[in-house]
């Protein structure tokens, strides 16, 4: 049996060494399989680690696919000096396309074009897919059976989100669709 300090050391080392996020359950399975350490103990240790790193240059954050260490966001600009390449800047067209997929998913390319009033370049869709931020989740049963796009967990991870709900709402409250959506959501919950 491992004491709580050993457990913290192990989890800390694992999350430092593994750049992809790991969930508490994954950590338990991969590192503590066969030991009697409970999921609760793992979560408690992770909480403590998060506290320990609160004021440090790296921080333990929780995103959609689990926990990971990352450099403190406020240091971004200064740290950029470490790399030759400049961080990517995305065009307004790409961001609007991404926003439509984020806020109106699942959505077809035609629907994106309808809102933006301009055809979506294949390059943009390719970039978004290559980054792993969007994926095809099905087809819409209308003539032509266009593909439906949605965001991935990788999108949430890369934008420091646990769920899409963490993004601010974009519909102004006086709009009809808000009331409609609210009703739909209620119906959904009552199902």
């Amino acid at each position: 049996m491992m004491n709580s300090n050993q457990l913290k050391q192990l989890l800390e080392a694992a999350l430092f060494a593994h750049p992809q996020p790991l969930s508490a359950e994954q950590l338990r399975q991969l590192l503590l399989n066969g030991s009697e350490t409970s999921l609760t103990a793992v979560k408690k240790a992770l909480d403590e680690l998060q506290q320990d790193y609160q004021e440090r240059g790296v921080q333990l954050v929780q995103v959609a696919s689990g926990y990971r260490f990352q450099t403190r966001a406020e240091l971004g600009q200064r740290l950029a000096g470490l790399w030759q390449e400049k961080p990517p800047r995305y065009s307004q067209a790409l961001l609007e396309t991404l926003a439509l997929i984020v806020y109106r998913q699942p959505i077809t390319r035609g629907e994106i074009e309808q809102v933006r009033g301009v055809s979506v370049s294949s390059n943009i869709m390719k970039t978004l897919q290559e980054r792993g931020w969007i994926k095809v989740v099905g087809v819409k049963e209308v003539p032509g059976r266009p593909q439906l796009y949605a965001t991935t967990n990788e999108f949430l991870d890369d934008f420091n989100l646990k769920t899409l709900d963490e993004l601010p709402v974009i519909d102004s409250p006086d709009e009809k669709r808000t009331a409609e959506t609210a009703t739909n959501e209620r119906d959904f919950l009552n199902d």
Partner: protein
Amino acid sequence: MPEQQSLPLGFVRGEPVIEKPEDLYIPPDALEVILETFSGPMDLLLYLIRRQKLDIVELPVLTITRQYVEYVEMMKELKLELAADYLVMAAMLAEIKSRLLLPKPPQEDEEEDDPRAELVRRLQEYEAIRRGAEFIEQQPQIGRDSWLSEIKTDAKDYVTVPPPEVTLEDLTLAFSRVLNTIKLQAHHQIKREQLSTRARMSQVLELLQHNHYVSFSRLFKRSEGRAGAVVSFLAILELVKESMIELSQMEPMSDIHIRLKRQHDEFESA
């Protein structure tokens, strides 16, 4: 005649910084840059409305359409492929304008259909998406604001590859496949034997590896009962048949000895 609208010369975060006086010459390159900052006709339209400091809902179709068409005219000269989507919007604006001008038929319905309503709705939706794009942009991003770990670990040196797992089912499936192959090769005749017989054959051979001679009776164990005796007997017969062992008996009724069959041994040459 409304006054000629001036063009923005440059943008900082989407907002125009310099208004072009009417008579200033803009090098075509610079104009292209300006036009490229619009992400589409909706963006241009929204920009024009905002510049008038007007609410989308009050959409002043006439002014906006004129300004819009002006921009599109310039685009057509400079970047033809850019203009196609913009022309669709110009056509839509023209349609709305003409519907506003036409005398309205008497309405039975109380609610009057404003031809601008659809465009207003689309502009609002577009504006919402613009907000969304901004929220996403502001979100801390990996690779822009934060970076992930690149630290060293010796842990990978300890990774071992476990041996493949085989199930009983894998094994029986493999054997069925072999049997099917045999069936295809018609000249092969394979007879099914009790597996216990095959296993006993292996055991007998193994025993003979360590002992030159083995007494026949040693191969029968009382504890195995009659069934065990039968298995041993069948195994011995099969081994003899396959010329893997030979039996010898010094005199009638004496103990039978078993030994591995040698190819050129004195028994055969005798």
